[in-house]
């Protein structure tokens, strides 16, 4: 689905993101983590050929298309139909003056799907993300954040995208709503083999759903590998610091015995 080799994004002489190697295959969920400004978003956008005002070098293949070498028309036809984007802030990512259905219809028409078929695809996709089709008649400000995020995923489905690139898709959401969105993504991955490349700074969340993890710091990849490897045997000091900083919760009763009041959180104290 996605194949990145020696990607480097530069503004002036500053490298704001460099990724030596990153692959995402069907049905796989890959996470990029790292501190703020470490180049996560940039990497994601570069994959779609959407970085502006910066020089991109290296090799990016997206759904079989060489992103850096492709003509604008080729790029435009890959975007949406093969790879779709889900962004951080749910409402801001949708055009405020347009009903969700209109956006969906236009996007489908852009990729050659029209009329009844378009309506059917739209409704199917919306149903697949567990939304009511009535949502298509709403404006973005009339839907909740979770709905908006799921609609963004529905857009990807309707267009037949094989990979979803998600930039902190749940960081603006309440944890209970986050759980909802994550569940939908997981289900689509299991049922349809959807590939997901997502950016997050929530290590705990990443640890629960990602197959593989890429850790970035100051524009460079410091560690990557399977989730199990990275979390259980972090090789890089920064990765270890990240993992240590994840706040611990009192475990659920099913998993651990109740801890005495006031002591529960101290188990995972980081070493400073």
């Amino acid at each position, binding site marked *: 689905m996605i194949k990145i080799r020696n990607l480097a994004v530069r503004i002036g002489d500053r490298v704001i993101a460099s990724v030596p190697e990153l692959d995402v295959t069907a049905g796989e969920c890959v996470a990029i983590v790292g501190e703020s400004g470490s180049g996560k978003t940039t990497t994601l956008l570069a994959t779609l050929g959407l970085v502006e005002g910066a020089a991109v070098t290296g090799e990016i293949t997206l759904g079989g298309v060489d992103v850096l070498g492709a003509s604008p028309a080729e790029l435009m036809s890959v975007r949406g139909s093969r790879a779709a984007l889900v962004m951080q802030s749910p409402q801001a990512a949708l055009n405020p003056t347009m009903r969700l259905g209109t956006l969906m219809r236009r996007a489908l028409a852009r990729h050659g799907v029209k009329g009844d078929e378009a309506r059917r695809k739209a409704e199917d996709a919306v149903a697949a993300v567990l939304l009511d089709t009535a949502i298509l008649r709403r404006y973005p400000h009339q839907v909740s954040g979770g709905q908006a995020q799921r609609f963004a995923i529905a857009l990807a489905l309707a267009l037949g995208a094989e990979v979803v690139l998600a930039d902190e898709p749940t960081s603006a959401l309440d944890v209970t709503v986050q759980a909802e969105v994550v569940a939908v993504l997981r289900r689509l991955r299991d049922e349809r083999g959807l590939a997901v490349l997502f950016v997050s700074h929530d290590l705990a969340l990443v*640890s*629960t759903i990602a197959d593989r993890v890429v850790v970035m710091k100051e524009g460079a990849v410091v560690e990557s590998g399977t989730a199990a490897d990275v979390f259980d045997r972090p090789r890089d000091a920064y990765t270890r610091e990240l993992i240590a900083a994840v*706040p*611990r919760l009192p475990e659920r009763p099913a998993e651990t015995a109740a*801890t005495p009041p*006031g002591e*529960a959180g101290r188990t995972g104290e980081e070493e400073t």
Partner: protein
Amino acid sequence: MSEPVVLGAEAVTLAYGSTAVVHDVTLSVGEGGTGLIGESGSGKTTLARALLGLLRPRSGAVRYGPRGSDTADLASLDRKGWARFRGDVQPVFQDGSEALDPRMTVEASIGEALTTHHRMAGNARRERVTALLEDVGLEPALASRRPHQMSGGQRQRVAIARALAVEPRLLVLDEPTSALDVTVQARILDLLERLAGEHGLGYLLITHNLGVVDRLCRTSHVMFAGRVVESGPTTELLTRPAHPYTLALRDAVPRLGGEPPRPSGRTEAVPAETGCPFRLRCPLAVDACREEAPVARDLRGRMVACHRAEDVLAANEVPHAPRQ
């Protein structure tokens, strides 16, 4: 240290314009940490602003004073009373870059507090600024910087130093770390914990991070849609929630290396206008929830506003909560 003080909300209702966003909330902050958790937009910041005297309650009162009976309503304070209150209660806000005047140097920002409360100037002031910076783990050289020349963590430390400059007795911490990277977050929390211990400060800690309250707060309050739905000892609350919202919250938090978070029900619904505000999301909602808004009641050492709190508790004793 002088006698302990309390700051409390008594049946406070808060509104922006004509829309009330906090309804009839009662809580108090005294010794030790008090946590306030809840989803985004549930009114935590609004409540904090009222406790800081920045927002007048539409009804109810914010009371402040020495522990005991002689607390005063903020609305009735005179100038001296306000001055004392300002000297005793200080905030640390979410975003350090927001909390510092972008045009002021660190020294000027902290100095403003010193001048206002201790009439310090000149060298004395400069020395005190240096001491405070060292106290929060910053180099004195930072004194001449402006906010945009510092990292988020540094800014947040400056904000804390400024609050401490007043020598307050209570801190109101409104998501003091959520704008920061996780690695920095941890350090700031360590710092707060240490300082609160050293200075014997009481604090209200607002966050939506359950791990953080668990670590820093003895008692906690859970807010949903402008109401406190559950309060009690933090560990108790998190291990055996009595309110379905607390439960959902707890279960939805991803745990490092744990299971993927489980969705709890119909998450898209907005808070209900009538009856229990949570009922549209609640997997346990029954007719009663639609008809009557639950009032907070005492249940095994905590206050909870739910018709079905007993069932929640009962269900939570066994490994997996039953779903309807």
